């Protein structure tokens, strides 16, 4: 027994011998295989998710149909000459001399039938995708961008800045979302860009709060301190180190809320506050024909004028949700993988 420390000494375990000798086997420390970036890995995960891929195909198809529904002309030059929809969406067919009446049931000539003004519902549904989809994507893109910057600044700087910025958010959250959008449209009047503005005004706050919370977590990571210790400026720290690591939940949220925005646009349309009456937007189309849901002309209910636009909304929103869930799972799985490799197996 001894109270002296460090009595044991081992010699002869020559680590350098391992470095010097030829490797005994072809086993190597780092597993072979292509290195994969975050997005590549995410995409691989996503592709394995069947329902998400189905959603993606549906959305892609709807987007293509909307783009190729009617020719697109920019400043007199036709940039997109195709027309999948047989008629212009606002064309009242009997005015054009066709032998068509209002509320004609689906037939080969008019696969989705015609509406109360004898317009071709098939053409209108195809064309209407332009409104719904573009508003959805534009609103979400703009709100997410605003929310990202706002939340990042608040979260990164903290203190007073954060306090003030968050109180502004509370102010926006104090209004019921759709009601605020309704007020804005009522004040500004109906129209495409008015709708975009209304939904942007209520939408960005959620992203800002989400991203701020995420930033608060991410900025505790040592690599953020490490970047500062290297002499990086705030801008670099925020946009190279903090935001890229905080952005995953934002992307999930954004993909899920495209559907919400489309529903919101449809809802306003249904309330008669969307696009001008007669527009081929899906919600507005429903609004125009809502009385027929209860009592159609001549006692029959022309189901096709509500089912097809409504079905389009349903299909699009559900597909967007499938995509959103898929993105969520793909990004989640990555986080899990990181952790698993860090800890004990």
């Amino acid at each position: 027994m001894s109270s002296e420390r460090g009595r044991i000494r081992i010699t002869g375990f020559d680590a350098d011998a391992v470095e010097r000798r030829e490797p005994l086997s072809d086993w190597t420390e780092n597993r072979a295989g292509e290195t994969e970036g975050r997005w590549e890995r995410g995409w691989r995960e996503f592709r394995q998710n069947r329902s998400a891929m189905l959603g993606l195909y549906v959305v892609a198809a709807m987007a293509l149909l909307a783009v190729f529904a009617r020719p697109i002309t920019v400043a007199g030059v036709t940039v997109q000459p195709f027309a999948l929809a047989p008629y212009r969406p606002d064309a009242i067919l009997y005015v054009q001399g066709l032998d068509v009446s209002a509320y004609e049931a689906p037939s080969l000539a008019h696969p989705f039938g015609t509406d109360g003004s004898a317009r071709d519902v098939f053409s209108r549904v195809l064309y209407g995708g332009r409104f719904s989809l573009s508003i959805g994507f534009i609103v979400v893109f703009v709100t997410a961008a605003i929310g990202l910057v706002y939340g990042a600044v608040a979260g990164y700087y903290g203190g007073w800045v954060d306090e003030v910025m968050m109180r502004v958010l509370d102010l926006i959250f104090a209004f019921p979302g759709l009601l605020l959008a309704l007020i804005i449209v009522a004040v500004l009047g109906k129209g495409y860009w008015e709708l975009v503005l209304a939904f942007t005004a209520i939408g960005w706050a959620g992203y800002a709060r989400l991203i701020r919370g995420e930033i608060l977590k991410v900025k505790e990571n040592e690599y953020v301190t490490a970047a500062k210790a290297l002499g990086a400026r705030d801008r670099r720290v925020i946009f190279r180190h903090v935001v890229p690591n905080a952005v995953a939940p934002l992307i999930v949220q954004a993909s899920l809320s495209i559907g919400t925005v489309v529903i919101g646009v449809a809802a306003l349309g249904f309330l008669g506050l969307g696009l001008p009456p007669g527009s081929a937007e899906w919600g507005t189309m429903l609004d125009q024909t809502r009385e027929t849901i209860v009592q159609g002309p001549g006692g029959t209910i022309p189901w096709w004028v509500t089912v097809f636009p409504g079905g389009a909304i349903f299909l699009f929103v559900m597909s967007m949700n499938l995509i959103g869930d898929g993105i969520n799972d793909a990004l989640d799985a990555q986080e899990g993988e990181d952790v698993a490799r860090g800890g004990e197996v």
Partner: protein
Amino acid sequence: MALLEVDDLTVNYYTEEGVVTAVEDLSFRIDRGEKFGVVGESGAGKSVTALSLLRLVERSGRIESGEIRFKGEDLLSMSESAVRDVRGNEIAMIFQDAQTALNPVYTVGEQIAETIRHHLDYGDAAARERTVRLLDDVGIPEPEARYDDYPHEFSGGMQQRAVIAMALSCDPDLLIADEPTTALDVTIEAKILDRLDRLAAEYDTAIQLITHDLGVIAEVCDRVLVMYAGRAVERASVEELYYDPKHPYTVGLMSAIPRIGDRQDRLQTIPGTMPDLVEVPSGCSFHPRCPFAEEACTRTRPQLVDPATGERAGPDERSAACLAYTGDLDGELDYEVEVRGRDAGAATAESEPPEPDGGGVDRGADPDADSEGKADE
């Protein structure tokens, strides 16, 4: 009959990257009142071993084969409710992170009293009294007052003490402690280990101590199992292991720790890192890091053998899993262990002292390892 007998335990995890064998062919014995250490680096399979003893392996893992007998009864064939009775009551567990082991919405005292009421059928007052006594036993000051505190009002050391109190509350026969002091400061660690040691004796509880810290093992344990990449590589009494390690990995580990007062300029290292268990090297999984490795090591997987005879060793005998002891290597394990000031005279009661001149290890020259160790101390 030993208190706990584990035979040929194999645990697989099914992950996206493939099947991971976290524990393979593991056998050991723990006797009543014994303090048994399991040492290894992260990824060695220590924690999985502990979890499988309580059948707590997570979803993705499966105990593929083997037997775990506790007091002669096979834990693996028991019903789920029978295992629940064993857990906490006869085998208790202490984890590294005391904070997550305590439920933040109940007071510390209440959580312990609850266990006592549940397992031992105590009344409210009796359970409270026993809890206060336990808190006092594990060294929590003012136990009456702290009974009603919530976990967040305890410091890290105090939380770990409370967890120990909870583990001891039903007087278990076996206490599995998984890195119990790793998150704590040395002064607290010393106090808690000291306390654990005394309580184990007092309650006649066997301890399975899992840690990466060779200092902690030396202080607490009687016998030690060294694990590497899911397999046992050496099993010995604590004196044998520290003064006469037989497996090259143990030797490397022993030489890599900085020791206070050893006046070494440079630390010896084990090159490389522990393999990822998805893809374990062929043959002896330590061969890419072993300076004594030869061609044979990449082909043959060594079994745990008695280093003196090269015979296959029983599950409680001193053994090492290295081909050097079965005569399959051309070279020698030419390392030396020198223990300053430990001459033959001072070490009479000990098992097999190395040569006083430090010319210690000539393989196979120390027959009949005394596996009793310091059991009578």
